[in-house]
């Protein structure tokens, strides 16, 4: 008996898919191999990031090796295998699984938060019977809170165990289990041990039905009404790929996007639920000059005139620019341009303290560095911008050398140490791009609303030196000054430093022409999963201070 598990990826297997000769590397499952030939086999319990459970049975196909249908998620391809995905056996198998799945399912799609992105709905539409022969009473299972952020609607559960496997394999916390047997079985927690791990929110995403529901999103919006923007999470230097889902300009939830090199399929709860600050009371929404609200034009002209009079030997004296690690590479490029065109400018950076780095059994990591684009800003403005240059700027501020200070304070959660805030406050004249008001904006001559990570357009570089696109969920043109990049260009135009405003992509083009690491890259040519920035990979940069 040959070992069916023996798989040499170098070996190519020739097999027949729906009568068509195809080939794939040995060791692939029928499901994966069929997918590589654009033949989609339905699934519930299969998830590429989790082990194979093989319990939903909807991925059954007919093969020439077995009289019974086989499940394509676990059966591997072999030489001479013939797979039928559309034969009568395969179709009736899928059809019957759909009928079985729905007999105890409440079909409460009109009030279910999953409706619209529900795998059960989709498969029922494509593979299910159009009516049920089940006339009995449906089983009732529990609806309860599983943890601070997650509820279960047990009646909807199809016991695919994706969530159970996630807690076992990825978060490693094993809070979830299946209780009861047969058609009474349902996902539950152990008494007194709620699901409360840093990755818990992912179980809601991977639930193929509406059984696991996020408290945060419950009854908030219908899926199909929301606008979906592919962006990045700004919570840490990991740069997890997220989809920002918003309704009428309000962010409703963040869900992870798959990126094998960065975040696989997951994001952490810290990042997932951290969008409330977008509507925080202390969010800066208007420009203000000496404490009074002014329109954008006045604010920009004021800042432009300050820049115009600054520089070596000019009346305005020395300009200091304090950058934050939330700036996109494009914004940093413009800041660098200001500094270069106004000789004598002292440029430095500040960032919040490192937090707790966490890594999980499923290889997902949360970075200890909470700055999403430190590497990117460094790639544009120099390696020491947050190091010795930042210290030099602080010393200059303390020494009274700086006359005008331009501050970027895009921190969603300002937790900067007092030495910085007092140094910033000591500047005689201060203009601040601020996300939230606080010590930085107090007493500032000019305050401009800064854009949050979800409102930026441009690129970030994550802790591994991966260049990725960050996009604004607000439509361009929805507001005149959509993001910092446009404001900066308006100010630079006013100060005579730039002749016209350009799109983020055009600025990136300038950046790629002038800065070596970005050479040859462009917004349009950037792969969906990002690209490594040469010379800025994790190894070259050295310790990130989060060896955890």
């Amino acid at each position, binding site marked *: *008996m040959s*070992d*069916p*598990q023996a798989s040499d990826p170098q070996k190519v297997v020739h097999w027949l898919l729906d009568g068509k000769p195809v080939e794939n590397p040995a060791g692939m499952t029928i499901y994966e191999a069929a997918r590589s030939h654009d033949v989609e086999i339905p699934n519930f319990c299969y998830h590429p990031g989790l082990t*194979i*459970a*093989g*319990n*939903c*049975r*909807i991925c*059954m196909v007919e093969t020439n090796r077995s*009289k*019974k*249908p086989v499940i394509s998620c*676990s059966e591997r391809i072999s030489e001479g295998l013939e797979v039928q995905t559309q034969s009568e056996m395969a179709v*009736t*198998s899928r059809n*019957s*699984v759909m*009928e*079985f*799945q729905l*007999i*105890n399912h409440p079909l409460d799609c009109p009030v279910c938060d999953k409706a619209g992105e529900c795998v059960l709905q989709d498969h029922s539409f494509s593979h299910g019977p159009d009516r049920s*022969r*089940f*006339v*009995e*009473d449906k*089983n009732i299972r529990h609806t309860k809170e599983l943890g601070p952020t997650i509820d279960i609607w047990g009646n909807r559960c*199809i*016991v695919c165990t994706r969530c159970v496997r996630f807690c076992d394999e990825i978060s490693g916390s094993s809070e979830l*289990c*299946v209780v*009861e*047997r*047969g*058609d*009474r*079985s349902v996902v539950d927690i152990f008494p007194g041990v709620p699901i409360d791990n840093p990755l818990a929110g992912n179980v809601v995403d991977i639930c193929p039905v509406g059984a696991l529901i996020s408290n945060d999103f419950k009854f908030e919006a219908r899926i199909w009404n929301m606008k979906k923007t592919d962006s990045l999470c700004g919570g840490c230097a990991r740069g997890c790929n997220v989809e920002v889902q918003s309704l009428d300009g309000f962010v409703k939830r963040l869900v992870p996007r798959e990126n094998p090199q960065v975040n696989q399929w997951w994001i952490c709860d810290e990042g997932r639920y951290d969008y409330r600050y977008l509507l925080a009371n202390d969010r800066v929404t208007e420009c203000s000059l000496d404490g009074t609200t002014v329109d954008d034009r006045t604010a920009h002209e004021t800042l432009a005139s300050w820049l115009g009079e600054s520089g070596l030997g000019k009346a305005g004296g020395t300009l200091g620019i304090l950058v934050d690690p939330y700036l996109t590479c494009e914004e940093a490029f413009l800041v660098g341009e200001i500094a270069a065109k106004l000789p004598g400018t002292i440029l430095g950076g500040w960032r919040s303290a490192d937090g707790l780095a966490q890594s999980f059994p499923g290889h997902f990591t949360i970075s200890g560095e909470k700055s999403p684009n430190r590497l990117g800003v460094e790639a544009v403005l120099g390696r020491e911008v947050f190091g010795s240059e930042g210290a030099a700027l602080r010393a200059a501020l303390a020494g009274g050398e700086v006359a005008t200070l331009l501050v970027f304070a895009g921190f969603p959660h300002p937790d900067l140490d007092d030495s910085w805030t007092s140094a910033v406050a000591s500047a005689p004249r201060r203009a601040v791009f601020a996300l939230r008001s606080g010590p930085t904006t107090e007493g500032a001559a000019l305050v401009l609303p800064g854009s949050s990570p979800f409102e930026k357009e441009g690129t970030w570089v994550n802790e591994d030196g991966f260049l990725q696109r960050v996009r604004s969920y607000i439509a361009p043109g929805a507001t005149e000054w959509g993001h910092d990049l446009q404001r900066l260009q308006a100010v630079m135009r006013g100060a005579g430093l730039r002749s016209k405003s350009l799109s983020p992509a055009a600025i990136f083009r300038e950046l790629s022409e002038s800065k070596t690491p970005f050479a040859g890259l462009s917004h349009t040519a950037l792969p969906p999963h990002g690209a490594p920035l040469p010379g800025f990979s994790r190894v070259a940069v050295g310790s990130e201070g989060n060896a955890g």
Partner: protein
Amino acid sequence: MSFEKFFTKYLHEPDCHTLDFYKKNYQGYQGARKALHEWEPDALIDEVKASNLRGRGGAGFPTGVKWGFVPKKTDKPKYLAINADESEPGTFKDRVIMEKNPHQLLEGIIINSWAVGIHDAYIYIRGEYVFATRRLERAIEEAYQDGILGEKTLGKDFRLDVTVHRGAGAYICGEETGMLTSLEGERGLPKLKPPFPAVEGLWHCPTVVQNVETVANLPLILEIGSAAYKQIGPEASPGPKLYCVSGHVERPGTIEAPMGVNLLTLINEHCGGVWKGRKLKAVIPGGSSAHVLHARECDVAMDIESLAAAGTMLGSAGVIVMDDQTCMVNALLNIMRFYHHESCGQCTPCREGTGWLEKIVHRIAYGHGQLEDLALIDSVCDRMVGKTICVLADAAAFPAWSFIEKFRDEFVHCIEHGGSPEVKKRHPKRVGGGLRV
């Protein structure tokens, strides 16, 4: 016909379970001694293959062939897992061995372990078998004290440890991979196959899973040799066999007879015939998962091939006899309730199908059935069989199929006359009342 009983010869002796008794009357542990000192493992596997010993747990897989699947060269430890869960309704044969003759099982374990190169054997015993557990544990203690088990098994430089593990009462833990998951300390869910347990079983190590009765046969094979063993019963599935006869017979119980004994002989001669002088209506020959046999089909030899030819199976040899006053609808409802209760809930067709079947049969028994329901049952069964990880779905579908096929008139009668007469007698207020759909 000379048949010498092997398992139940001294059943009536009060101390038949002790080591001394076993040594004295059964030439106890001579087979194992012979195996360890005179047989090379490979030759022993060939001998068991030659004996045509078939698994007694239900599937009837050739034991020697199964041993041959275990990889010879492996860095991993190999395990023996004895399935003593015996949860198939109508089955109580392993219990007799473990309560009355536990050393026979231990001797078989030694032979099996030597043949496959196993140093750790587990006995997964049904949780309800408290007495059997106690007897078995006592027997293992005796064996350790006597140097039969332990670092030097029977004086040979071969370590063998035997551990008893009690189940918690789930039917599914009698399925071989479900039992392994349970033994690993997890919820007892059957595993995907392949890999088969012989290659990857307990803790992902090669594991031989054997039924108690199968292993208890090994000392006999060693004692009389495979050629003589093959003479007992039919050659393709030979050996002495324990039949568990229950239901409507005068003297129910565990009967030892050679493989291939006639079913009617078993009922009429060994068990005193159908009780109260009534007539035979139906027999389930191999535990509740087997296809039911109509009275007119019961003149059949009780061995694997003959029963397969009759469209049913020997299974665990749990023979359930039903007299002519049994309501087959109610009997099926009882079986369906069992499978609904015991489905582990892992695979969709079984999880939902078993519950659905029970609900339909319940409806028919309580007078709310329709004639179309019989076709519906047939279709639901068809959609369950062969589409799940383990065979519990098949086990639930087979009785449903065969009951309706062979006793269709009773089901039709129930549908047309407002429910099962037995249910009507017992719950007169809960039956009937028109169609509730």
